[in-house]
């Protein structure tokens, strides 16, 4: 085992920080590091927090961490911010909001930027979660702006995904239709002390029930004839182990109001995941997806090496321009060694 992993397992913060850097840089040797982590993982619960900019994600995460700490649990946070597509640089500002956990090293807060590596961010996040889990964190929170597919993938690495919605004109609820509604296991109307919060709660309830009634959800008929479809979330909703109806909770993250009930719903969801067998199914799916992703990366790397071995693509491009060959034929030719070993 490498010294770095040994130090991480022994609880050295600097080693944990360095392992996450290696994961982010994806430099040489990072794969060996991550593969040594695997056997030590599986003890943490992982929650993804997403929502539009200004919804109050960082403030809520701060209060969540504080509450967990009061209960004697240790916390790891990964906060992801966008990076500039021009310089690759980024200002990562989520840390400023972590005011309640000052000087407490048992809250390990790490800022990450979406470094523009296509699909790479979800790999890095998954691996960073492994590092925090192996380190022994009880609770891991991933925080990100839910603005694009990439971000949706990231929160998808969490056991439970909470979507934050600020009260407003309904535009934010509109935004939710575009892909975020589907991933939410819990919806939070934050800043619930502001005008319009009640309306946003109602709108969300309607949408959640529409989602459940949709044939696409695979739960057609669930609550199909319920008359108080927009009523308060009641016990019965999640009484059976078959389906999960996302609860809608109201919080005022700034004051910490509603944070305890929110954490309770996370516990409920976790219990449902375990009871329904969904947790295991989800894990298996994710490991499978992870293998596929690593295979794609590995294969891509082999192909890059082969291209290099062939002296780059320049001369192929020349030949294509001169109409001597075409892109498909070139691809066939370059893949020939690979094809031979697979098919023969």
């Amino acid at each position, binding site marked *: 085992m490498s010294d770095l992993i040994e130090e991480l397992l022994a609880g*050295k*913060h*600097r080693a944990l*920080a*360095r392992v*996450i*850097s290696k994961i*982010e*840089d*994806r*430099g*040489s040797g990072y794969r060996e590091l991550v593969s040594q982590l695997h056997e030590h993982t599986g003890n943490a619960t992982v929650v993804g927090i997403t929502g539009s900019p200004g919804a109050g994600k960082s403030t809520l995460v701060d209060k969540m961490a504080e509450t967990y700490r009061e209960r004697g649990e240790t916390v790891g946070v990964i906060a992801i911010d966008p*990076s*500039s597509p021009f*310089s*690759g*640089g*980024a*200002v*990562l*500002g989520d*840390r*400023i909001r972590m005011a309640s956990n*000052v*000087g*407490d*090293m048992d809250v*390990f*807060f*790490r*800022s990450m*930027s979406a*470094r523009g*590596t296509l699909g*790479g961010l979800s790999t890095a996040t998954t691996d960073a979660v492994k590092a925090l889990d192996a380190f022994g964190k009880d609770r891991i929170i991933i925080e990100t702006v839910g603005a694009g597919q990439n971000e949706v993938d990231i929160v998808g690495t969490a056991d439970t995904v909470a979507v934050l919605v600020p009260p407003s004109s309904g535009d934010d609820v509109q935004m939710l239709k575009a892909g975020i509604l589907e991933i939410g296991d819990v919806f939070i109307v934050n800043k619930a002390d502001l005008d319009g919060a009640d309306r946003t709660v109602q709108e969300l309830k309607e949408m959640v029930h529409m989602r459940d009634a949709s044939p696409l959800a695979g739960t057609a008929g669930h609550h199909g004839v319920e008359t108080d479809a927009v009523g308060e979330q009641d016990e019965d909703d999640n009484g059976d182990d078959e389906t999960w109806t996302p609860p809608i909770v109201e919080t005022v993250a700034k004051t910490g109001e509603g944070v305890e009930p929110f954490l309770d719903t996370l516990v409920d969801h976790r219990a449902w995941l375990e009871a329904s067998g969904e947790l295991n199914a989800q894990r298996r799916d994710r490991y499978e997806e992870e293998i596929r992703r690593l295979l794609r*990366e590995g294969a*891509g*790397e082999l192909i*890059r090496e082969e291209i290099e071995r062939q002296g780059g693509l320049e001369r192929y491009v020349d030949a294509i321009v001169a109409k001597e060959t075409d892109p498909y034929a070139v691809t066939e030719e370059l893949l020939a060694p690979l094809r031979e070993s697979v098919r023969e």
Partner: protein
Amino acid sequence: MSTQDSEDRTIRCLVAKVGLDGHDRGAHVIARAFRDAGFEVIYSGLHKSPDEIVQAAVQEDVDALGISILSGAHNTLVPKIVEGLESYDAFEDTLVLVGGIIPDEDRDELYEMGVDGIFGPGSSMAETIEFVRENAPER
């Protein structure tokens, strides 16, 4: 992925405001310039204690820590940060920079404490960025 080998790994910096000094225009300017240079910048926010700065520098595993002090308290605040970094084995491979108002007669003492560079008023941004690039610790 070979698109990013360790040669051109992204440099991470913490831009820190420590103590009671509430002037952060300079820190903002530096943060933006670093970002535009392709660095990942974590900004601490105002009025942070040395402990908080140490916590952030350790957890974020930054290559460079830039401390902005305009209050004159550098002689008490900087040693606390250096000691804190040492206690987490993080001092050796963190580039420690101080910016702000540092009188000439205090500079030698700061360098002795382990500060790697001091950038006062009039320092050029390009010079500062170049300094970070060239002196970012090997890891």
